[in-house]
């Protein structure tokens, strides 16, 4: 497979389990080395390090408050604690968690934990945000709200996102580019686009006819990819 990412892209990797979506994401993050081929970053040495990662589970440190959890990437990079916490507090507020800075993870709901996790990934202002089925374990109402908030954040900040999901609806709602992947061997079967005009045109994109049309198209592409496998 050959995937080119441009700055500001919102790319969804959609496919059944076992097609290597998460593996690809971990390779981009540098957590596992590719067995063949390469992952090229812009020549700027900062680019490779400017990555945020959101796991399928919130993956918070249970012994630390929301604030300390969100401040972790900065503190690991040696940012003074006071500054790290100030920036983390700002990011938590942007994720709608003002007032919960000093709560421990076990006191937070699943959706709130995921918000802390996203705040932690964004606290370093990364250029690239990698998300591995981040909302898969949440209930639908919470998932819709997080989808919306993530989209709003991305529209403001325009970082690049690679979003792994197995939900057709989620991929159409969030992404401008959808890569439909097929298993055995893992590969990209098709790329589809959701033009930004479609999303901007309708206030209620999720209930619009265009949204339904995109979902139908993506579903067909996914079914075709599965059949070919």
């Amino acid at each position, binding site marked *: 497979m050959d995937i080119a990412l441009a700055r500001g892209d919102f790319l969804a990797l959609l496919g059944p389990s076992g097609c290597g979506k998460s593996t690809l994401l971990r390779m981009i993050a540098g957590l596992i080395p590719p067995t063949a081929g390469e992952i090229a970053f812009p020549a700027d040495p900062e680019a490779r390090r400017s990555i945020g990662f959101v796991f399928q589970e919130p993956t918070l440190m249970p012994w630390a408050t929301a604030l300390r959890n969100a401040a972790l990437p900065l503190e*690991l990079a040696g940012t003074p604690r006071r500054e790290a916490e100030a920036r983390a507090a700002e990011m938590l507020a942007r994720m709608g968690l003002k007032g919960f800075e000093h709560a421990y993870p076990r006191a937070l709901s699943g959706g709130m934990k995921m918000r802390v996790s996203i705040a932690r990934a964004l606290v370093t202002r990364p250029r690239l945000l990698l998300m591995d089925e981040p909302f898969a374990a949440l209930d639908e109402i919470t998932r819709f709200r997080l989808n919306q908030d993530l989209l709003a954040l991305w529209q403001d900040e325009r970082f690049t996102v690679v979003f792994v999901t197995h939900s057709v609806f989620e991929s159409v709602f969030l992404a401008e580019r959808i890569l439909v992947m097929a298993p055995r061997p893992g590969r990209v079967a098709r790329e589809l686009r959701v033009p930004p005009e479609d999303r901007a045109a309708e206030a209620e994109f999720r209930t619009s006819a265009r949204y339904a049309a995109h979902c139908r198209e993506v579903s067909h592409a996914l079914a075709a990819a599965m059949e070919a496998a």
Partner: protein
Amino acid sequence: MTGAARWLRWLAPGVLGLLALTAWEVAVRVNEVPPFILPGPVLVAQTLVADWNSLSVSLLITLQITFAALAVAASLGLLLAILFTQSRVIEMSLFPYAVVLQVTPIVAIAPLIIIWVDDVRAALLICAWIVAFFPILSNTTVGLNSTDPNLRDLFRLYGASRWQVLWRLQLPSAMPYFLAGLRISGGLALIGAIVAEFVAGTGGAASGLAYRILESGYQLQIPRMFAALVLVSGTGIVIFMALSLLSHLLLRRWHDSAGAGEGR
């Protein structure tokens, strides 16, 4: 937990204990059992008060040995566990010997240690340490190795140093395990100290509670023997409760085990 259930938690064992003690006292009096066979609880309590001067000195000695052994076991166990997680080779070469130390009955090696180490008190400390050491080592090693793999990846992603991983990830993860080990070792340190003193026998210069028990046995001072025994058990209970409380205070804000209160 409701207030009534909380009270019941203390009340139920308290009432049971009181009933048992009363039955014991009544049985001793009705059957006129001589005190050198079985003293009643009242006589034991009286002896405890009457002999408090000599008994308290012994209690203090036993406490010193127990806590010194526990402190050494805790710090050495923690250090060695950290060393194990830093190097597989060190773990593989040392862990079997830690197991050997654990499975060899302390009564069997205590005489050797008492022969080898001139200072009786130091010998007792070593024995108590051997018994108390292993639960802390093995628990902490498990704790250090059972960090969330995703959190490990996260630390790697942000280029965390070994030191940062240890300090910010592994040690906090291992904390509940370490404290559980400490609670087990607290009781074991006391047992180790008592057993070693039994082996050292009456010749021991350090006269802890075990020495009092032996001495009272030889002199048929059975009520005093019981009084010393009460002190040993009481010490064990207090150590366990104190360590449970410590664990509760350290973990209550974040760990699930601390939610249900102490005594587990």
